[in-house]
């Protein structure tokens, strides 16, 4: 009963991992395809829910492992470290701040400077790459090959390749964001700073009413311009903003009593394409490893080993290992050659000698009959 419940929970977790991968994909697609704020908000909240779920899952596993005196074993050998970095950092650095920003309605507005705000926003988005490590959680749970050795080797290879890629991308992106602002981002922010300077000049010369609209209209990213007297320009009506824009979609610049709100979505689209590219590259890499490396490993390592194990343990099994010509010098096939050429002929002679037994029946198979 306990085992059944455990299996049920494990299968549920597997299902949630699959859901979160779909959610990760959709979250980026929503940015690229400019889905409505309502949908994007749902995706942000579900992302937060998943991160919270995996954080609780990690903590439960970790503390129950500690209870059994196997905390280190869980973290290091049972790949608990993947559970850790694919849960808590995401909750604290990505979905947590995103949810707070939605709830507060103006999380990024009012920070020191727009470039710093962008850095924070980008950091939050970069942390999302870590979510891709959850793909590894699937491989931790699925037994995709029968041999324990093959399973361990393939999981190790997949874990090494993907975690090093994801972690290096995350760390490098973090460092780049902290110490270097991209020229495009800088230009984007400066463009709006110079735009507001021009607008203030026009205001000072009382020309804003004449030239303001054409000035703001010429810049696609400008959304709203406000002065002390009220809104002087708005690209869309309020209904449109509430339907398509969230708090973190607005860039903000102020000079004197003039405020300019501009659209940050084009910057996010670049980020989302970048994340999606990584996501798809990792999926492709996994597919290649599964489709090409996994059978290669089975054919060149586990299959010959399994045939030899059967030959050694089953008296009636006498199939030879097929040795590919181009791999005949591999250690495993050198061993297989000895098995084919020395052991099997010896076994055949032994099986026909006097007192030899080639019995396939085992007494243990008839426990019920013998007890009855």
């Amino acid at each position: 009963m306990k085992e059944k419940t455990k299996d049920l929970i494990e299968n549920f977790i597997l299902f949630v991992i699959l859901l979160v991968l779909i959610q990760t994909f959709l979250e980026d697609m929503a940015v690229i395809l400019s889905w409505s704020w309502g949908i994007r908000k749902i995706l942000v909240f579900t992302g937060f829910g998943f991160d919270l779920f995996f954080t609780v899952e990690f903590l439960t596993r970790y503390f129950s492992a500690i209870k059994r005196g196997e905390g280190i074993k869980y973290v290091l050998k049972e790949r608990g470290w993947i559970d850790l970095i694919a849960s808590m950092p995401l909750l604290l650095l990505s979905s947590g701040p995103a949810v707070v920003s939605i709830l507060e309605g103006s999380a990024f507005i009012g920070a020191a400077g727009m470039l710093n705000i962008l850095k924070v926003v980008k950091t939050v988005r970069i942390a999302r790459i870590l979510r891709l490590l959850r793909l590894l959680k699937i491989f931790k749970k699925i037994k995709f090959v029968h041999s324990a050795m093959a399973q361990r080797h393939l999981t190790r290879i997949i874990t090494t390749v993907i975690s090093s890629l994801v972690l290096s991308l995350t760390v490098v992106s973090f460092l780049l964001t902290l110490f270097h602002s991209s020229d495009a981002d800088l230009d984007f922010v400066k463009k709006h700073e110079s735009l507001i300077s021009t607008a203030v000049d026009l205001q000072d010369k009382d020309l804003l009413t004449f030239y303001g609209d054409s000035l703001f209209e010429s810049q696609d990213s400008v959304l709203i311009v406000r002065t002390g007297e009220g809104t002087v320009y708005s690209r869309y009506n309020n209904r449109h903003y509430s339907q398509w824009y969230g708090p973190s979609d607005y860039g903000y610049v102020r000079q004197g009593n003039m405020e300019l709100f501009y659209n940050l979505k084009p910057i996010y689209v670049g980020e989302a394409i970048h994340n999606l590219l990584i996501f798809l590259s990792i999926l492709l890499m996994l597919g290649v490893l599964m489709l090409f490396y996994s059978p290669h490993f089975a054919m060149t390592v586990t299959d010959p080993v399994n045939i030899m194990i059967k030959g050694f343990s089953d008296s009636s099994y006498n199939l030879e290992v097929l040795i590919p010509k181009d791999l005949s010098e591999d250690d495993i096939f050198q061993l297989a050659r000895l098995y084919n050429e020395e052991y099997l002929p010896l076994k055949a002679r032994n099986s026909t000698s006097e007192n030899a037994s080639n019995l396939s029946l085992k007494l243990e198979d008839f426990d019920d009959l013998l007890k009855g």
Partner: protein
Amino acid sequence: MENDKAKAQQFLSRLMQNPTMKGFSALQREDQLLQFFSINGEKLKPTLSSPAFFGGWSWQDINKIMIETLYDMTNKEILPQIQSEIFDKTSYSYISFMKLPAPSESMKRQFMAVLTKLLTHPVGRKQLAGPLMAIQTGIIKKYIMHSFQRQKYVHFELAKVQRLRMSQEEVYHLIKTSLMLTPLTSLFMPGDGGQTLTPAYAEKISQQLSKLIPGLPDPVIRSGINSSISFQDDKKLEATARLTTVFAHRCADMKQGMKIDRGAASSDQSWFNIARRNYKYYGYDFDMLTELYNISAENGW
């Protein structure tokens, strides 16, 4: 007595239902169960001596009824098969190609009688397992067909050296007869059988067997009996005798429907290759094995 046999049958049926018995012929299954009883006798004793089975019986009597029942169960399966092979499925037309008088219906009855006698002989039963399996699986026909198509060593030995001027169909039936004759050596030999014969002793057995099956021509009987002679001892051994011994041994432990694991050579291919390495030990013809090995490898058998 019938009630006792029913109990023994119930116990044996349960053992026969074990998945490891799948793919074995009736005689192979019988051999497995005899080995099982011999190895695990002490552990089976408490169950079989219980009131549910044979309470109050001596172990010797229990053993006897179990073996008798086992033989009965096997005979029920194989006797109709042997009968059908001798009377219906085997064509003796090859005899006329050997320029010998055609066999009479009584020859078939004589042949059947000797084989029935063989079934009372524990060693004979064991020796019959391979030949019967070879006939049942059709292994001979497919290899003979390919040998005739290839026209290489096996065909040369059959057609040119042994001078069998007949079609592959007749050769097939000749080897089939030869296969049914080969276990009959155990009727004339002490011990547990399986050992190779000297050419002189084989000749004596052939002569004695001729008296039991007078309707069957001597060259045919010799082809069956000489299959127990090592090719290393007699390089002039008939090709049919050499093929008979290879197929009888090949099928002795053969398990039908055996799953070929990925990365493993096929069943026949493995067996012929191993046999090539042991050819001196078993007295096989190496070149013959090589050709059969090549046929099996080419066809994935």
